[in-house]
């Protein structure tokens, strides 16, 4: 026991020199620095409801449901691992990882994001084509591109009906004999 007494007392003196290292944390905020990934937050103006984040999430906490002409995105943030795959894969950069980390709660309903978008339904069969926002986005991109302007007529058709209409449209060069 006495062999190490001198060295241990020297260590105690070193600690005394360090003074008090305690952070004043709950009484003063202690923000995380740099690229800290906290709770995910959706920028609702940018999101087009495409569902790419639902594909990418490893915890599969994002569900996309189409019902009654509306698309609902639901995030169960209780099991989020804050990996930011959803942010990386979003085409519109609508998801960001906010620096909020004080997320404790006694009920899991506080840890959710629930977003609802209007759907565009196919004018022939009534199936969902996509959200109004994503259709508007495609429309804007086509309008800006000066090519493919006639494709803008097909924007409110689902895939199957788009194919049917394309097959039965009379060709410009040949006459189709029924």
């Amino acid at each position, binding site marked *: *026991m006495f062999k*190490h*007494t001198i060295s*241990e*007392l020297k*260590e*105690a003196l070193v*600690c*005394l020199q*360090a*003074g*008090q*290292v*305690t952070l004043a944390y709950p009484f003063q905020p202690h923000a995380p620095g740099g690229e800290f990934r906290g709770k995910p937050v959706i920028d609702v103006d940018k999101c087009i409801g495409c569902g790419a984040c639902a594909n990418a999430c490893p915890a599969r906490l994002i569900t996309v449901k189409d019902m009654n002409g509306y698309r609902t995105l639901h995030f169960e943030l209780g099991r989020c691992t804050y990996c930011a795959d959803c942010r990386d894969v979003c085409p519109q950069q609508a998801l960001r990882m906010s620096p909020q980390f004080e997320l404790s709660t006694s009920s899991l309903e506080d840890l959710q994001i629930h977003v609802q978008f209007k759907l565009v339904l196919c004018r022939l069969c009534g199936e969902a084509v996509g959200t109004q926002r994503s259709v508007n986005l495609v429309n804007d991109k086509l309008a800006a591109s000066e090519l493919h302007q006639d494709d803008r007529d097909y924007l409110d058709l689902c895939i199957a009906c788009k194919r049917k209409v394309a097959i039965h449209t009379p060709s410009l060069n040949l006459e189709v004999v029924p």
Partner: protein
Amino acid sequence: MDLITFFLGIFYTLVFPGFLFTAIVGLFLTWVDRKVTAVVQSRKGPPWFQPFADIGKLMSKKMLIPRGSRAIGFLAAPLLSIAGATLAAVIVLRSLFYPQASFVGDLIVVVYLSALPAIALIIGGASSRSPFGAIGASREMSMVLAYEVGFLLAVATVIIKVGSIGFADILAFQSAHGAIAGSVSGFVALVVLVLCIQAKLGYLPFDISEAETELIGGPLAEYSGTGLALFKISRAMMFFFLLVFAVLLFMGGVKLTMLSILGFVLKLLAVLVVLIVIKTTHARLRLDQALRLFWGRIAIAGLVSVALALLGL
């Protein structure tokens, strides 16, 4: 014995300087202990009311008695611990404040009363039907055999120098001849006593019976609620009592002047700081290392101090 003396005796035992006074001052000294530990570890410690909040919280919890344990031993052990600490503290503090109350032989009474808390721990651990309690109890038995040797040799040194067994005579000797710690044999005996107090209180490096990470609290593993609170109070009382015992035996008593009281408090705090610094800077010893230390070097130092006292140094 008339009624007034009887009730006065009850007052002395339960309120001042008995159970309430010793418990409150002892709990306050455990706060000083935690604060000094915090300073050595570079952090802020708990606020001053922390030990009282701990005891209050423990009192408000349900006490669970393990199925199959001997309930009599399990429940009597904390009460035995408190009784031993209270009586020892009453005798020492009464003779401190009122030297006429001490009688011949009260030093020996106090020495064996101060062994009661350790015995209570052994009884509680052994009756709790838990392997941790059983191992803790057997380790505590070995430790008691180890540290009582040095403790008794240090006390014997004081008895030899003073020439009588009684607190009043020890205090009178020290006011006439100066503190016993000033002489060579007294100083060696004080060092031996401080190390034995470290083991008696169950502080690192000698907290082998209650090793928290190996034995999950040892004998205290199955206690909860009021039983645990009583054990912690008796431990705080032993802390205060042993500090006063050490200062009284080796560094003189106290008179009713401000300077003398201040000096006494400073001596108490000095011994406390030595105990805490040893506690925070050492790792726990194994049982065989501790036994070898106490029956080897510390017993030899005690014998040396007794021999020096016999030679008159």
